[in-house]
């Protein structure tokens, strides 16, 4: 079985990002970048399947500028076998990303795609579902468990009211939620070994994909900030304030 995982380069989850003063984007100069946390979980899940003997090869794909090779290298150090960088200057929109994935899935004859459910920068939560639509594959989104069973995959999904379990034919798309697994760290020897693993660099046009989008960002602004209120001295004062000042209880 061949697994495709997506690894998106995003600002590290611990960095407090701010809007640029001219409102054209976020100020990411010198910010620490990392693999999107949900993508890390996707990589880990694929590695576990390989370790369990149900997967043979893991291909890690990133879409973006040359520097995204750093995130592919991390995925290789963690245990992916090879990488593909689809080079784009700007961040591609989800539909374009899904089209790129579809082209790779067909070219590489992929059986299972594991992606993060969302990336912590754009917060879209779209790509997996879009790939599933374009390929007419089943989708197991927001997965908190995923298990290969007799040529199918059983996925438990985190839903608003609790949990739902579905059984999907392969090929299928799975998107990860936070509790699917806890990703490992790459060991130093594996980081060294990863340097020798191959990364193909291709263009969207090599895959016949047009990445233009009908979405235009007109501006980005900082939301109205909440300011700190008052400290109360006792539980009694808290109850009094909530009752008589805020009038919410």
């Amino acid at each position, binding site marked *: 079985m061949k697994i495709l995982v997506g690894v998106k380069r995003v600002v590290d989850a611990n960095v*407090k990002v701010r*809007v640029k003063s001219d409102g054209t984007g*976020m100020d990411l100069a010198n910010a620490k970048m990392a693999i999107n946390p949900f993508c890390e979980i996707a990589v880990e899940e694929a590695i576990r399947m390989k370790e369990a003997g149900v997967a043979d090869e893991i291909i890690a794909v990133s879409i973006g500028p040359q520097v995204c090779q750093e995130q592919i290298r991390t995925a290789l150090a963690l245990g992916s076998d090879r990488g593909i960088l689809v080079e784009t200057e700007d961040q591609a*929109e*989800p*539909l374009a990303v899904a089209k790129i994935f579809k082209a790779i899935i067909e070219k590489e004859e992929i059986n299972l795609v594991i992606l993060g*459910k*969302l990336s*912590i*920068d754009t*917060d*879209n*939560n*779209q*790509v*997996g*579902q*879009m790939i*599933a*639509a*374009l390929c007419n*594959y*089943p*989708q197991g*989104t*927001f997965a*908190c468990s995923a298990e290969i069973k007799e040529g199918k995959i059983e996925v438990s999904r*985190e*839903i*608003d009211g*609790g*949990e*739902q*379990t*579905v*059984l*999907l*034919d392969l090929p299928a798309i799975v998107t990860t939620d936070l*509790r699917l697994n806890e990703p490992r760290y790459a060991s130093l020897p594996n980081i060294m070994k990863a340097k020798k693993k191959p990364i193909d660099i291709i263009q969207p046009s090599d895959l016949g994909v047009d990445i233009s989008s*009908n*979405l235009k*960002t*007109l*501006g*980005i602004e*900082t*939301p109205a900030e*909440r300011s*700190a*209120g*008052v*400290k*109360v001295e*006792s*539980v*009694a004062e*808290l*109850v009094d304030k909530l009752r008589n000042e*805020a009038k919410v*209880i």
Partner: protein
Amino acid sequence: MAILVVAEHDNSSLKSGTLNAVSAAQQIGSDVNVLVAGSNSRAVAVSAAQLTGVVKVIHADNACYEHQLAESVAPLVAEFGKSHTHVLAAATTTGKNLLPRVAALLDVAQISDIVEVKSEDTFVRPIYAGNALATVQSSDSIKVLTVRTTAFADAATGGEAIIEDTDFGVEQASTKFLGETLSVSARPELTSASIIISGGRGMQDGENFVLLEKVADKLGAAIGASRAAVDAGFVPNDYQVGQTGKIVAPDLYVAVGISGAIQHLAGMKDSKVIAAINKDEEAPIFQIADYGLVADLFKALPELEELLTE
């Protein structure tokens, strides 16, 4: 042309998120249709028809929609979406699972989690866990949008829309529904509660949530949690509030033993009033709390319960 709202329901009643999606749709245009896909779901179509401003309810009642799997419902929504200018659904796990699939079938973009309608083609949505708001314009022929439920009021009832049945069905053999475990609680639902009291890692274990429950009972409040509390197994995952959990905006949000990480704030900072109980006076939660109490929660919660009894 009209706007299509995809109803969320459990085959017997309409979920509250649909009311918010309908009122977002009404801000875009006046002609709003609602699509109900389900099995033995007549009651849902009837309640959707009572929403003020809804012109027509399209009711697809078919065994293949029993669990509303995206694989079956997306082709249906895409088919009816073609004759609409916009397709909307609540940004719940159901809506997020479905609408990107619909958008890709229509070969258009999807805009996630809108919090404001600027015009029929321009919308505002949070990015970077709510650290920024992006204004996005779409030139697609059909705009597919998920709606942040806390940003739009509930649509009122009192309407009398027509119900039109369709036998459009999509059998999907490649996805099989195996089961669902839904939390049952006598308390209000997190996303529609007017008071929420949430516990974090500071609660130390699941049993201590009883302390929160006792206060919640006095207030008629729902109970929420931080990711740390869910990850530690104190409470089930559907309690999680935050960037990757539920987005809530009650009249009162009480954060107990929660530090106030940005990902948690992303889910609750639009609450009208925020109160926090934390023993660390430097905890970031105090920077956004209207009322902060620096105290040990194991002392404060029983006291709170007692004072609320009086």
